[in-house]
């Protein structure tokens, strides 16, 4: 290892190292208790296995968390993503059911219209959040709290207080089907995240986001259109939540306005922070967020593999989260290292 690389190691400035180690450890524990966990096989014309399952279930969270990463990097936060997810799912379900009925009588819109309607609804939600944050200058947590509460209410109103069952088969395929053997949900999430990663890499968006997140006043004074960029990021975050809403509702073939995406905002924020993105803004890592989302889903899988009683699920989850978070803290790591050296010295004496 070169000198510079080893220095980076020691100072802990390799931000992805600890999240990646945590994920590897969780996978190893899973593999220890379930010997078939890491096995991926080809069954019934598609990939199958626990890992594929983890990826498939992590897809909506990874999507939401990716959008959240940008918002958090801009010193914001969006706690309305769960509600937006529910709205998008409800709108999609209503349109697809309506159009199925129309299709039966001949003509009428199809899948694309339902998806467009869902995403348009999500984009509107994002625009609303952006307007409150940028236009009205509300604190992001307060601004998005409005939609978190009101949005779910709106979704329930749209659904008439019912869980809407979806009968359209091609819509259901989005959540259950496979493309070239890979779950469609994984393909969709991967495509969107890849698109985002390429945009960040090939345009100046990354520079602008970090500049605004670190020092909004200076960024604006340098001529960056901070308001426009912030607004766009809230819209993008809501669009991600909308896509997740489609995937979730397609997976269970129904839209549940009251419970779809419940508390996903917290899991998304958790994924972002697990990935090493600072809530203070400026420093972010999209790859870290993906690892964070995978950590959360692997953890859930582990709880089932270990056969932890359902009522202790959340406690186990909390313990793992605390452990991962503490491992990421430079203070704790320094303390642990000091403890380790003292131990070694003690044995030597």
């Amino acid at each position, binding site marked *: 290892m070169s000198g510079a690389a080893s220095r980076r190691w020691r100072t802990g400035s390799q931000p992805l190292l600890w999240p990646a180690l945590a994920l590897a450890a969780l996978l190893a524990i899973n593999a220890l208790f379930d010997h078939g966990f890491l096995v991926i096989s080809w069954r019934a014309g598609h990939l199958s296995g626990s890992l594929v399952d983890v990826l498939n279930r992590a897809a909506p969270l990874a999507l939401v968390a990716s959008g959240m990463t940008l918002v958090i990097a801009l010193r914001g936060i969006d706690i309305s993503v769960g509600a937006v997810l529910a709205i998008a799912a409800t709108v999609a379900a209503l349109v697809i059911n309506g159009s199925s009925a129309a299709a039966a009588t001949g003509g009428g819109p199809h899948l694309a219209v339902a998806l467009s309607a869902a995403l348009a609804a999500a984009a509107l939600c994002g625009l609303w959040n952006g307007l409150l944050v940028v236009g009205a200058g509300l604190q992001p947590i307060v601004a998005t709290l409005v939609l978190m509460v009101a949005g779910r209410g709106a979704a329930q109103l749209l659904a008439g207080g019912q869980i809407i069952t979806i009968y359209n088969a091609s819509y259901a395929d989005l959540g259950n089907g496979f493309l070239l053997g890979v779950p469609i949900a994984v393909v969709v999430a991967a495509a969107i995240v890849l698109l985002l990663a390429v945009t960040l890499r090939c345009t100046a968006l990354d520079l602008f986001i970090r500049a605004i997140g670190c020092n909004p006043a200076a960024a604006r004074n*340098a001529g960056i259109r901070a308001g426009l960029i912030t607004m766009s990021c809230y819209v993008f975050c809501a669009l991600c939540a909308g896509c997740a809403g489609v995937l979730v509702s397609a997976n269970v073939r129904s839209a549940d306005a009251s419970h779809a995406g419940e508390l996903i905002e917290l899991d998304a924020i958790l994924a972002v922070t697990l990935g090493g993105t600072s809530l203070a803004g400026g420093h972010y890592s999209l790859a870290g967020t993906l690892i964070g989302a995978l950590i959360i889903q692997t953890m859930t899988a582990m709880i089932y593999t270990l056969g932890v009683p359902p009522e202790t699920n959340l406690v186990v989850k909390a313990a793992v989260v605390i452990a991962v978070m503490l491992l990421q803290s430079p203070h704790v790591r320094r303390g642990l290292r000091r403890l380790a050296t003292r131990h070694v010295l003690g044995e030597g004496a």
Partner: protein
Amino acid sequence: MSQPCVLRARGLTQRYPGVLALDGVDLCLRAGEVHALMGQNGAGKSTLVRIITGASRPTAGVLELDGRRLQPESPAEARRMGISAVFQEVNLCPNLTVAENIMAGSYPRRGWHRGGGIDWSGLERSARTALDTLHLDIDPRRQLAHYSVAVQQMVAVARAIQVPARVLVLDEPTSSLDDEEVRQCFAVLRRLRESGLAILFITHFLEQVYELADRITVLRNGRQVGEFPAAELGRDALIAAMIGTDTRLAEVQQRRGAAAAAGSEATEPLLRARALGRRGRVHPVDVDVLAGEVLGVAGLLGAGRTELARMLAGLDQPDSGSITMGRAEVRFASPAKAIAHGVAYCPEERKTDGIVAELSVRENIVLALQARTGLWPRHGQRQQAALAMRFVTTLGIRCASVETPAGQLSGGNQQKLILARWLAIQPLLLILDEPTRGVDIAAKAELMNELTRLADAGMAIVFISAEIDEVVRVAGRILVMCDQRKVGELQGRCAVQDVFHMMAGRA
């Protein structure tokens, strides 16, 4: 000499990645003396202060307080050991009362038999004692924000000496004070000196050094040039010691003639503002800026100069008047709009409004250029590095590499960094608000030379400063402001007294 050292530093060395910030520096602070610490930006003054006040630990070297080895782990610990500090920016809470600020961290408690909790009357008494020591007649029960910055600075001193202090470190305490306030501040410092405190005083103002200091230690590039009795070190010798070569101020003087000449032949102004005003900030002002001239804006703190600049650069919206560029009227709804018209603004507060501390030197330099280009196409990594290298070289920005975070640079280098950011977009009009604040004399001369060069090349420059002699030196034409009004215009080469006279005519 006669007095033994209260605080002695031996061989202090501080190594940062790529930079030797401090290299074997000795320092001896004696009781009842004011010791000035002088040096250019990046000379190591701040590093030395950080070590003495416990904010960072030296790579090598020792500190001794009264002959005993001292290793403060934190500013709080240094304070307990008797080393207090007052910094350039007032680090107090404006929303708390004066007494609460002075006593913060050591509020007296009531005994349990009286219900426990904070002893508010005791708190006020202790604060009043501290204020009385400084002969400060202010009400400790009032909110700190109620008082001027100068008084707030004095409250910071009161807080510093409220613990039994042996050493008081003052890091540019006077940079935001006007003359009268500086006088008040010095009266207090003289009393503290008489009481036997050892004072380390850091400032960029030469007059203040000679007014107050007994001894001067000069640093240059992290090394100690020497310790001199203030009475034996002439100004020229001091400046020479700080810079290492002669100052280049004379050169500035010569070049200004050329800049003024270029301005006089221009006919159509580049930017014309008419009755530009903002209620409560600036009364309507007429300004013309010509291409190729340096327009000085002279005014004291609060004269409305910054407010005028912010309107010209699109940071604030005027509520009356108009701006014309060329033949068309323009409205700058945001800095981005102003930049699109070629107007760039270096703000007064470079830390909060200028640099992005966490981004690298390269990213800071390329920021405005990329912002004007938009999201796409992105300037390539190699192109960015080349651009950054070019400005680092031409402006003499001192940094370990172009990938160093901008926050690690010293004040003067940060100023140059923002200048580089704007030069990269080649603006038509460059507005500089207090560009020399907190910048040492050599960097000042370099900066002013750079400005005259730019003006010679056809750029219009608005140079705003409270340092009237600098304005007179560099500007071809001077707009004088007082009490949020334009009180008149003067030609360059005028005497500093003329400017004062014009300001006084209004006041």
